[in-house]
């Protein structure tokens, strides 16, 4: 049985609260104390199990809607209340503060207005809060480095992944796939692959994938052929799909890849995906789709909500790159087609680029940080900033 002092040292060691010298001393002490070493092992095991605790409880679907509805109700109420705010931190003199409060109360009685007094924070509390924040940030940093290393080495992987295979002939089967393995499906099979609690991949038709990486922060697969849908579980983890020489990255974005008449179509259903092509990077938002042409090229992304006419013009321009078609595209585009115009900017001559900029500005004005010249010169930051502006006005 360990003494009280040994127990305290053990837990301090476990919590990384000992200095380097103290740690070394304790580690040497452990060599001659099997009981203590066993207890440390049990603590480490407990910590490992806790770190792997998944989120077992699922909130009801109505929670988000209730939150948003409350925000909308709050907005309506706040517009009827006028606040006379008094920040006590700006007033050193207590007498002055008291008289300001009295004045505000009189105002309230006269006009029926609500007053708020921000309570003063003492210097001691401010100092303590700052100290806690610095210590917290430092501990987060140290913990992140140590934790990241240990986790990456031992516990970070999400493989093997659970696989559910459904087919008409053979009912349902389950299996697993591990890192660096290749998985293929047959013609009439529907496959669902669960990547821990991070995401799901659905495969159908004759699909072939290879698992390149499977950790809790990063998942990567290569799709050789077939149909694949990626469904995230809203946890901000990075998923990459490699297809020919194109890398599709998703954080919380649901998208699908489908083989269709000897070509491959990519459809974005939620948020946006990032594309990494050999000579360019681009983001494609939800409701947009494109086709992969060759090893490293894509068609112009177009929205599912664009008019039939506009989509036909884009299809035609994809093949012919005809200037008359381009002029029609610019003329007939609406706010729904803003991202399509934004994409085309990088692939036309400066003369047409100017026309596109003029048209796109009428749909979504340039953000204050950019100007026409920056866009004309295809500077990356201004292009990104305008993309963000289009995204938030399209999806507010």
């Amino acid at each position: 049985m360990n003494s009280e002092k040994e127990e305290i040292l053990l837990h301090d060691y476990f919590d990384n609260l000992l200095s380097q010298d103290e740690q070394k001393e304790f580690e040497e002490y452990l060599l001659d104390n099997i009981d203590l070493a066993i207890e440390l092992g049990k603590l480490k095991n407990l910590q490992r199990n806790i770190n792997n605790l998944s989120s077992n409880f699922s909130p009801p679907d109505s929670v988000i809607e209730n939150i948003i509805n409350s925000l909308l109700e709050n907005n309506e109420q706040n517009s009827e209340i006028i606040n006379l705010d008094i920040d006590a931190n700006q007033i050193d003199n207590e007498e002055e503060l008291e008289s300001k409060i009295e004045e505000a109360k009189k105002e309230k009685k006269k006009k029926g207005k609500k007053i708020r007094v921000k309570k003063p924070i003492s210097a001691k509390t401010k100092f303590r809060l700052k100290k806690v924040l610095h210590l917290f940030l430092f501990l987060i940093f140290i913990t992140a480095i140590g934790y990241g290393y240990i986790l990456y080495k031992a516990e970070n992987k999400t493989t093997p992944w659970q696989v559910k295979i459904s087919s008409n002939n053979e009912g349902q089967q389950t299996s697993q796939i591990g890192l660096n393995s290749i998985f293929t499906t047959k013609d009439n099979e529907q496959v669902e692959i669960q990547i821990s609690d991070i995401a799901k991949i659905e495969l159908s038709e004759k699909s072939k994938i290879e698992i390149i990486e499977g950790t809790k922060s990063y998942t990567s697969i290569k799709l050789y052929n077939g149909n694949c849908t990626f469904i995230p579980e809203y946890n901000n983890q990075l998923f990459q799909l490699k297809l020919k020489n194109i890398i599709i990255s998703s954080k919380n974005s649901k998208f699908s890849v489908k083989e269709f008449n000897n070509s491959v179509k990519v459809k974005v259903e939620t948020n946006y995906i990032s594309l990494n092509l050999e000579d360019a990077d681009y983001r494609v938002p939800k409701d947009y789709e494109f086709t992969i042409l060759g090893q490293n090229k894509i068609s112009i992304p177009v929205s599912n909500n664009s008019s039939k006419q506009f989509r036909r013009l884009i299809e035609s321009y994809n093949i012919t790159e005809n200037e008359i078609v381009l002029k029609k595209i610019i003329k007939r585009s609406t706010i729904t087609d803003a991202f399509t115009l934004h994409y085309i900017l990088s692939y036309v001559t400066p003369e047409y680029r100017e026309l596109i900029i003029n048209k796109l500005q009428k749909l979504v004005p340039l953000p204050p940080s950019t100007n026409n010249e920056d866009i004309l010169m295809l500077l990356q930051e201004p292009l990104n900033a305008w993309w963000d502006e289009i995204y938030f006005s399209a999806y507010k």
Partner: protein
Amino acid sequence: MEHDYQKLLIKSAQQGKKNAFRELANINLKKIYNIAVRFTLNEKIAEIVTQDIFIEAWNNIKFLREEQPFDAWLKGIAIFKLLDELRTKKIKNKLLEDGIILPTDTELSSIEKDENIILQLPEKERISFILHDIEKYTYQEISDFINDMSVDEIKTMIHQTRKGIISSPKYE
């Protein structure tokens, strides 16, 4: 070229865009909800507190500085709200009054053994253990959250809780 998606959402929410906040809430909801369930041991109470947490976050998101990690900030709001609920039992009493929960409701349980061990700990031990060993707050921070306990008292409690768990036959 890649922008951090969550940073974009925060920036947009700070400009008052509710859809961006909805996305932020979606991303963080499950994590916050599970902390709330572990604190309150009741999914209905956890649901209401979780809603309050996100509403508070929305009301204060404009004060969030760029260098502050959103996850840690949101978790801080969650801990304050949950500790307040455990102290006052305002939401629990309201739900009991409205008959939405009953005093005879069965204890919460999970299919995971480790989760159950935590859920069955007495309140003070459970909260301290969750804050330190799961949510990674320091002893000093926990003492600041739980005003009536010193750092040493919290340390001792957590040591005893760990010892209790690892020596329990349920844990073997």
